[in-house]
């Protein structure tokens, strides 16, 4: 049962984060709306007081918290006790027995953010955190560079929070992603260009407009929201870590933050330490991180995306090198799959588990399958595949690859004839597969 979420008056307790620190050179900064180091341009990360967290946070205190990502508030970079809570997070962790059997695995779980709230993708996690922080920092207009899901989420949560919103997307996005943004009545800039060009433009706009760009000047706070995908899996597995995770790679941020989430839970004593293998999934038509991994490089050569998996089509991924590093040091893999395999992946997950995911999820399932077939996932490993978005938003991708309706008259004999025909077709398909 879902509890009503009622806003209460704002009050503040001591924040558990102390500032920002450059991931590269270690330079420290105040927790303001900045995202790169002034010395070396490295990414800034939020610094927490883990000693206090270790003393004050317990499994019980988390479980007594809200039924949303905000049960992990102590690990998130906000000061308020009343964050923007629209029921984001705590999505199902489904034991996927039918898919596991099909692939030859024994313990497979799907973390299903296709049903995340309010906009049906994992982006609701990062946006809930970013907009809560944006409000604390005094922004009245929020913005983002998006491949679609982020625009949906930013527009939706900004509407709820009463923030002005202007989002930037590539002009060739799927219809569902565009409509799913416009409905919240933000200003939508559809840019003639790919995501990397949109992102560059937004960085330029951020130089001169005093807006809170969730994935630019608010990025250190925003990206921390993805850690909740690590926390939730650990909690839902009964306070233990899995053996292997498979997640899609776009900028690489999600991947690195799931890793950070697991590490933090170990650090403060909420779960026992154990090795977790991290494997990443890319579409062949945009696989700069998979290429760097394959070639053993420590730098990313940017590419121009050409794939149906538009939500993860980032040719110039900001956290690519960090994703390569994590896959390497955890004995994981980064693999890419063709658009055809992505469509098959979407269908396989739908037909075996009743989950309709978008192209990013199809990529993840197709890579999962490829890794199992290559012997790179042990059947005995407890494996979690992260499904990050909903298939109803990318209907174009599967149109022409799925069955059709049988149109009949409202008469019994019309139904009987159609049913007979359907059975025959099914037998024929079955014969085709087995012959």
């Amino acid at each position: 049962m879902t509890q009503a979420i009622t806003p209460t008056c704002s009050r503040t307790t001591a924040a558990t984060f102390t500032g920002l620190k450059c991931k590269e050179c270690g330079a420290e900064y105040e927790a303001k709306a900045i995202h790169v180091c002034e010395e070396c341009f490295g990414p800034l990360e939020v610094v927490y007081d883990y000693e206090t967290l270790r003393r004050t946070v317990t499994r019980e205190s988390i479980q007594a918290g809200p039924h949303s990502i905000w049960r992990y508030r102590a690990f998130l970079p906000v000061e308020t006790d009343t964050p923007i809570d629209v029921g984001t997070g705590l999505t199902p962790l489904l034991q996927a027995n039918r898919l596991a059997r099909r692939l030859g695995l024994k313990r497979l779980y799907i973390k299903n953010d296709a049903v995340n709230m309010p906009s049906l993708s994992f982006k609701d996690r990062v946006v809930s955190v970013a907009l809560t922080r944006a409000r604390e920092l005094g922004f009245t207009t929020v913005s983002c560079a998006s491949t679609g899901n982020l625009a949906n989420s930013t527009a939706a949560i900004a509407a709820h929070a009463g923030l002005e919103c202007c989002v930037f997307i590539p002009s060739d996005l799927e219809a569902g992603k565009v409509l799913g943004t416009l409905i919240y009545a933000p200003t939508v800039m559809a840019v003639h260009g790919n995501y990397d060009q949109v992102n560059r433009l937004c960085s330029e706009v951020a130089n001169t407009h005093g807006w809170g760009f969730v994935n630019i000047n608010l990025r250190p706070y925003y990206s921390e929201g993805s850690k909740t995908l690590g926390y939730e899996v650990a909690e839902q597995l009964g306070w233990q870590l899995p053996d292997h995770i498979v997640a899609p790679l776009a900028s690489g941020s999600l991947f690195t933050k799931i890793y950070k989430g697991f590490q933090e839970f170990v650090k403060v004593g909420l779960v026992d330490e154990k090795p977790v293998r991290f494997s990443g999934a890319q579409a062949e038509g945009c696989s700069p991180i998979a290429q760097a991994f394959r070639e053993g490089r420590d730098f990313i050569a940017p590419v121009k995306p050409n794939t149906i998996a538009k939500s993860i089509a980032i040719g110039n991924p900001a956290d690519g090198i960090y994703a390569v590093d994590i896959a390497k040091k955890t004995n994981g893999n980064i693999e890419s799959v063709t658009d055809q395999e992505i469509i098959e992946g979407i269908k396989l997950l739908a037909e075996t588990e009743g989950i309709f995911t978008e192209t990013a999820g199809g990529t993840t399932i197709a890579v999962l399958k490829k890794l199992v077939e290559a012997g790179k996932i042990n059947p005995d490993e407890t494996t979690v595949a992260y499904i990050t978005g909903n298939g109803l938003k990318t209907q174009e991708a599967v149109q022409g690859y799925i069955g059709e309706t049988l149109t009949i008259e409202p008469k019994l004999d019309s139904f009987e004839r159609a049913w007979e025909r359907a059975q025959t077709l099914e037998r024929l398909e079955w014969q085709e597969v087995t012959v």
Partner: protein
Amino acid sequence: MSIKVLIPTPLQKFTRDQATIDGEGSNILELLDSLEKDFPGIKARLCDDQGELRRFINFYVNSEDIRFLDGKNTALNSGDEVSIVPAVAGG
């Protein structure tokens, strides 16, 4: 030979808070030298000790990433726009 240069926020303290400045040069390396003359200290932020462009900064000439062109030797013409953008953004 004037090149329009877009300056990211973290470097605007070198450019007296200007987001757009004019520079000169027939390629990216020459442009950086011209910027250094006008705004001392800026080049060391853009290049490492070996004189290579820092890996967390992207350069674009007329909206194209110079890694798809000739890198730091990418030719510039009068009227071109060079955008300097921190690499860590988006996603």
